């Protein structure tokens, strides 16, 4: 996306006049070594270094031309190294230093530190609270995968948005979706209910938010109404047109049914259709795994084993599929022995 932006955006072209630019393909030639040297972990990552190769600022992701150019401008205005910036921040904290150090921490996947610096920025510049809070929640979202935050810490931040007078309905929906994802990951989906309810209330009747709202409506039907029929109807409504001919979408729908133990017969049929339509063996193997899980959930372990064997045949190098096959074989053996 950035490569296209370099060609098309005048804002980016102008901003590149003030710097030297190096495109580093992290999988080819010297690019592999350069990525290793700077400990790059996600793509795209942008790092500004001085002529000695010392890092001065960095950020992960392409945030659009205006913000990208603002990062470059800030990097040009303060060319100190990150180590020097840290010392300067301890002596006299400024919002610019806080943001620069927060973004650099994100690049290093040090999400706890990123949150710490973005919170400082929010304190130093309350006018930018909305943007900083969004950054804080995004870092918490990624950090919670590695256990950097507890659900209570995330909820505290989400409460900040939900109780803020500045927050729009869109903000609340975004926060609820994020918190829902984290709560599911941490195995405590129920914890998301108050946020889902609040976001749905705040965004009622706002057609422009309909696409985001529907995922929350599905959760609400499942968690609060405990109405699986309604949830299934909403799930179908949320699928894009032509989804029944798209292997990725078929897999997504079938996996959702499996996760919620709903509509398993149809889910199996749709998953097998996805296997047929999938253009490559890797995707076929992935969807076979979904179909095998569904069969197992329907107590059909024999078929789960057969489907998983096909998945292993398609993708013999994926260890995960071998583990899955062993799991279903064990279940089948237990059944037969018992």
């Amino acid at each position, binding site marked *: 996306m*950035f*490569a296209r932006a370099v060609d098309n955006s005048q804002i980016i072209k102008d901003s*590149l006049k*003030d*710097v*030297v*630019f*190096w*495109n*580093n*393909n*992290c*999988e080819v030639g*010297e*690019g592999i070594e*350069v*990525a290793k040297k*700077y400990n*790059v972990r996600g*793509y*795209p*990552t*942008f*790092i*500004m*270094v*001085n*002529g*000695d*190769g010392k890092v*001065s600022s960095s950020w992960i992701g392409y945030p659009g031309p205006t913000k990208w150019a603002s990062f*470059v401008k800030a*990097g*040009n205005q303060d*060319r100190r190294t990150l180590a020097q910036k840290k010392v300067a921040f301890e002596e006299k904290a400024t919002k610019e230093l806080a943001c620069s150090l927060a973004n650099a921490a994100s690049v290093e996947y040090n999400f706890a530190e990123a949150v710490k610096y973005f919170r400082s920025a929010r304190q130093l510049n309350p006018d930018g609270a909305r943007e900083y809070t969004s950054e804080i929640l995004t870092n918490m979202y990624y950090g919670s995968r590695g256990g950097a935050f507890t659900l209570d810490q995330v909820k505290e931040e989400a409460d900040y948005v939900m109780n803020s007078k500045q927050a729009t309905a869109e903000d609340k929906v975004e926060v609820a979706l994020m918190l829902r994802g984290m709560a599911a990951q941490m195995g405590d989906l129920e914890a998301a209910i108050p946020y889902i309810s609040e976001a749905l209330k705040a965004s009622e009747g706002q057609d422009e938010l309909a696409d985001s709202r529907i995922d929350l409506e599905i959760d609400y039907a499942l968690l609060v109404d405990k109405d699986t029929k309604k949830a299934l109807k909403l799930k179908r409504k949320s699928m894009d047109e032509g989804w029944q001919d798209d292997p990725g979408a078929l897999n997504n729908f079938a996996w959702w049914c499996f996760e919620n133990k709903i509509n398993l017969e149809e889910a199996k049929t749709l998953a097998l259709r996805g296997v047929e339509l999938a253009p490559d063996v890797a995707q076929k193997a992935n969807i076979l795994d979904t179909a095998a899980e569904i069969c197992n959930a329907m107590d059909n372990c024999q078929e789960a084993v057969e489907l998983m064997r096909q998945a292993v045949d398609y993708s013999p190098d994926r260890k995960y599929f071998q583990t899955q096959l062993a799991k279903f074989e064990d279940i089948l053996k237990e059944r037969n022995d018992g």
Partner: protein
Amino acid sequence: MQNKSLRSRLAMLTLLAAMLLAFAATAMASEPASFKEALTLAKAENKMLVIDFYTDW
């Protein structure tokens, strides 16, 4: 006649060399050929170097 021709040839060659140098400098400024060259250029021009770390997938 001969001298004049030599002089003009020399002038042409000088001009050509200057153009080539200018072209090389422009090419280097917009697209360094290696990371090391990018760093050298940043140092020489006292500019920051922005590195875009990407993959094709």
